[in-house]
């Protein structure tokens, strides 16, 4: 296997050297909350974390971004799109589940009929160095949805913590190119054996997963089932699950203008917000939490499979840890799986 090694004590200088060529985003701890932020020095990175509060999707799909600006004078008007970024972006230390999430977002924004230039520009400049999960969290269920604590999907390099060192697995050519001239040593047999132990122990320590084989077919027959009412009764549509979800991508487009000009922006939106489906006529086809929550589950576990061939969930567990009413998607999916479909 093509694996390099880097001593933990050398990680800081490795990161500092990367800072010369890339805008580096790494986990940063601020008042007990971990989020991905731009770092200017390796010392700001905080790698001893389970997962961040906000997912790194905002680096490719920002919470708010300008699509174009316009300005007017007495007899002319001009429209300008912001220039694409030219600096390379390095996502350092993200988890394999988050790395995988970009693959789904790529399918959405790089479709046959429509290509989102804003998103694609950012993705083209992005390189991902993921950090495998030696201590998966209690709410992680990546293995139930096709991922894993050491999955390499979506990464260019994958770091695996084996104690005093990190094994560096080279996943893509982009990753290999990053390591050119960085002079990392090759991982030895002993170190690779240690890596295999770490991987095995991490997988064994994970909470039991959930069964979703065959769930889609079941869901497709259950749209009108009364179980949705009782499942979603405690949800008060706060939207946290969607904002923190690495695979959620709904957005709104707004204009902010003054007399002399303004800008059109894209901002995050949430299908859980009560006004998400409010129509100009005043009709709202998803008036209650029941319809909205059903939409969330159906979208992630059925419609995404139809449209993109991939489940719309990477099992990161953020929606479970952050939901104010502890509406646990694992419990929901298990209940749905066990519900007898009415004939």
């Amino acid at each position, binding site marked *: 296997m093509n694996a390099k090694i880097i001593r933990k004590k050398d990680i800081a200088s490795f990161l500092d050297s990367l800072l010369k060529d890339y805008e580096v985003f790494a986990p940063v701890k*601020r008042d007990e*909350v971990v989020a991905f932020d731009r770092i200017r020095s390796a010392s700001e990175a905080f790698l001893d974390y*389970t997962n961040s509060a906000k997912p790194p999707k905002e680096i490719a799909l920002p919470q*708010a971004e300008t699509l174009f600006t316009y300005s007017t004078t007495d007899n002319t008007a001009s429209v300008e799109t912001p220039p694409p970024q030219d600096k390379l972006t390095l996502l350092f230390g993200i988890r394999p589940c988050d790395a995988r999430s970009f693959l789904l977002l790529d399918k959405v924004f790089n479709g046959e009929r429509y290509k989102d230039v804003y998103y694609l520009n950012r993705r083209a400049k992005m390189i991902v160095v993921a950090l495998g999960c030696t201590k998966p969290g209690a709410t992680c269920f990546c293995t139930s949805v096709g991922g894993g604590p050491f999955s390499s999907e979506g990464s260019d390099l994958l770091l695996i913590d084996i104690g005093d060192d990190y094994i560096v697995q080279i996943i893509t050519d982009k990753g290999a190119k990053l390591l050119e001239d960085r002079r990392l040593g090759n991982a030895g047999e002993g170190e690779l054996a240690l890596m295999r132990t770490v991987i095995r122990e991490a997988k064994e320590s994970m909470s039991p997963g959930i069964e979703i084989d065959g769930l889609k077919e079941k869901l497709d027959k259950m749209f009108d089932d009364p179980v949705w009412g009782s499942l979603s009764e405690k949800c*008060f549509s706060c939207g946290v699950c969607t904002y923190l979800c690495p695979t959620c991508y709904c957005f709104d487009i*707004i204009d902010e203008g003054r007399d002399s000009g303004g800008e059109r922006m894209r*901002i995050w939106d949430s299908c859980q*917000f009560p006004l998400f489906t409010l129509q100009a006529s005043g009709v709202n086809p998803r008036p209650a939490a029941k319809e909205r929550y059903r939409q969330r589950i159906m979208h992630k576990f059925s419609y995404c499979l139809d449209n993109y061939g991939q489940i719309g969930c990477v099992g990161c567990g953020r929606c*479970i840890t952050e939901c104010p009413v502890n509406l646990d998607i694992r419990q929901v999916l298990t209940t749905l799986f066990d519900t007898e479909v009415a004939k």
Partner: protein
Amino acid sequence: MTDPTNKIREVARKLLQKKEVELIIGFEPGTSPLQATPCFIRDKEEVDRLIWGSFCSNNLATYLPKRQEKVAIVAKGCDVRAIVELIKEKQIPREQIIIIGIPCQGMVDRRQIEAELEGKEILKVEEQGDKLILKGNNFTRVINRNEYLYPCCQACTHRNPPIYDILTGDLVEEKATGQYPDVIQFKAQSPEERWKYISDEVSKCIRCYACRNACPLCYCQECFVDNTHPQWIGKTINNSDTFIFHLMRAFHLAGRCVECGACERACPMGVDIRKLNRKLTSDVKELFGYEAGTSLDKVAPLATFRPDDPEEFMLNP
């Protein structure tokens, strides 16, 4: 000290049996040992799902507005205060609810515990009076629950429900009301320091509106953030807009906020949301002698006036 869990179950069973209510809203264990979760019970055979403990932090009053059926609700001091305000604002008739009041010793902040345990997974929690026994793989840790309370619970002056139909626990000692040491302390800082603190806090905000949706008193069908004609504030994470969002949400809760902390608990980014609410609560008390949710008879301060209201703040050369 009576065990509230059994009392709550007993009360719930009787109410459903006698068909006095169609629904009980209470708490059941969550999917992690440090969490409880709201539950909705309609069948008297299911009342044993109900529990009471240190993690029953949600304000269940948020589920009351516009309910059609007769409902019994498990409510702590702050929850009942929210219910009182909702009744006064005509969101739910008093006759439609049966308040199962429960004096509260404060709710335990699981994130404080998780932070201290630095990722070690807790598999079981036992409560013994003031002690919480946390058990995980190869470790047991005993903590004093009073050292891990939510900030809103530490400052709480209304642990006992101000009104109730049934009381399921012994009344507890209350702190003196009208004390706002945190507001006084913050005010002592310079305007620049205060501005910086609040700006830094709101810079963490991602405008997910979880605080608004978790708040039992934020029940507007269309919030000011949603208005486009006129657009009061922008919807992006621009600092000025976000600052105003928090200022105005607090202002819309002036004299209505019951300091249950639902907003802070819902916030995924750890924003100090209650900072501004506390100022308004202390001003409403000082200027108008009013505390939200303590009396069904007192009119909300911004719905009335007195000819001799304070006006020292005005420019009067």
